[in-house]
């Protein structure tokens, strides 16, 4: 096994591309990111790693706008992500220049995925160690959520929500259990669902969550920590009320 993972372009005897699989391991070490597709809003939430005291918080940004109507969050190697994001941004403008239309979310996802695949099939290069959640609104107003991974495959997330990174499995299970039509009925509910999902795996609550939303025909908005705190307190109150109700039911 160890002989077949040095040069990336080589398959192993049992059909594995080990470098790509190792890249996926790198992604699993990255901080969790969750994406929710509502009716008129798309939400991206990431777990913010606690920052050293002497470090300026704002310089670590894991949610990035690619264009006025598309943005992405990633899990994995931040430096690799910077390159991918830069290429995607250039492609968004290039598309506007040649075709006079903004990119569709699917188009830019496909572009990023193709870029990633190219790096799994050329010599001397290693794959990008990131998975990305790409959200946005298409020209006709439909909200979309896509996911890419280091191998260059991309998926359309038909069921409104997905998670990547460390503890992605836990978050995904939570979303599968708690996602209903009502949970994304309003913009606020969709945002709260993202926070609830992240609270499952994030250690110290609201302080370690970074949240961004895009509403139809508006550009990316990063929520301030105050807003996130308010929503977290709301969620915790709701949880308490639920627990109270259950207690009462048991006692009667």
């Amino acid at each position, binding site marked *: 096994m160890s002989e077949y993972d040095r040069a990336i372009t080589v398959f192993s005897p049992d059909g594995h591309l080990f470098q790509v699989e190792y890249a996926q391991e790198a992604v699993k070490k990255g901080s969790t990111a969750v994406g929710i597709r509502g009716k008129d809003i798309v939400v991206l939430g990431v777990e913010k790693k606690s920052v050293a005291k002497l470090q300026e918080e704002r310089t670590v940004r894991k949610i990035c*706008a*690619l*264009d006025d109507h598309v943005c992405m969050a990633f899990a994995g190697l931040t430096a690799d992500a910077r390159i991918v994001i830069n290429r995607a*941004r250039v492609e968004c*403008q*290039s598309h506007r220049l040649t075709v006079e239309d903004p990119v569709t979310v699917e188009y830019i996802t496909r572009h990023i995925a193709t870029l990633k695949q190219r790096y799994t099939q050329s010599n001397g290069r290693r794959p990008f160690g990131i998975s990305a959640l790409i959200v946005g609104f298409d020209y006709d107003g439909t909200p979309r959520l896509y996911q890419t991974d280091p191998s260059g495959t991309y998926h359309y997330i038909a069921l409104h929500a997905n998670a990547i990174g460390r503890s992605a499995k836990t978050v995904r299970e939570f979303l599968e259990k708690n996602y209903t039509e009502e949970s994304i009925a309003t913009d606020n509910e969709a945002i709260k669902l993202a926070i609830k999902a992240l609270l499952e795996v994030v250690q110290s609550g609201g302080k370690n969550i970074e949240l961004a939303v895009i509403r139809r025909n508006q550009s990316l908005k990063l929520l301030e920590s105050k807003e996130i705190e308010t929503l977290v307190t709301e969620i915790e109150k709701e949880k308490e009320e639920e627990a109270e109700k259950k207690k009462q039911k048991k006692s009667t």
Partner: protein
Amino acid sequence: MGWIEILDRAEVVTDKHHIRGSTGGGEIRRAPNLVPLRITCLPNDQDKMFKLSDKILLLCVGEAGDTVQFAEYIQKNIQLYKMRNGYELSPKAAANFTRKNLADYLRSRTPYHVNLLLAGFDETDGPGLYYMDHLSALAKAPFAAHGYGAYLTLSILDRYYRPDLTRDEAVDLLKKCIEELNKRFILNLPSFSVRLIDKEGIHDLEKLMPVGAK
């Protein structure tokens, strides 16, 4: 009195001749006192102003095709800067970026033959107007004009411009220029679209249509 009907691609000449038009089946009759030649109407619905960002406008005139190509290229690059850095380029930086691009292309096989006016509002420096020509000269100016109309309007602007003009006075000055063109310029220019940039952004003002122009 006679009348003259101009047909597709048929040129009408002096009143002494009787010509039957071949296309369309019309007739050309005599018309004394009238010696028209080709009458062409240039398109009047082209917007030559390109929005580079929320507070910057680029007015691009010159070679057909070059104008749109160059202006859109600059426009998309300014947007790319915004995406990459999270904030928009200042008007001064945008003007210099545009000039550099124009200069680079000037000594290539494919120079852009365009004359530009870049107008923008900066938070710290206030409003700014930049004059750029096809040889890539850049100058920040209080007022500027390109084309043959400049020969007429620059003197008006020179006479009546003051650095402390209010918004309404500035629009009036623009109207004075247009009146002058209406009087003395050979081409009939029926309508002018007007835009204003202030700290709130770009605003469309109502079209100016000089009286007597059709």
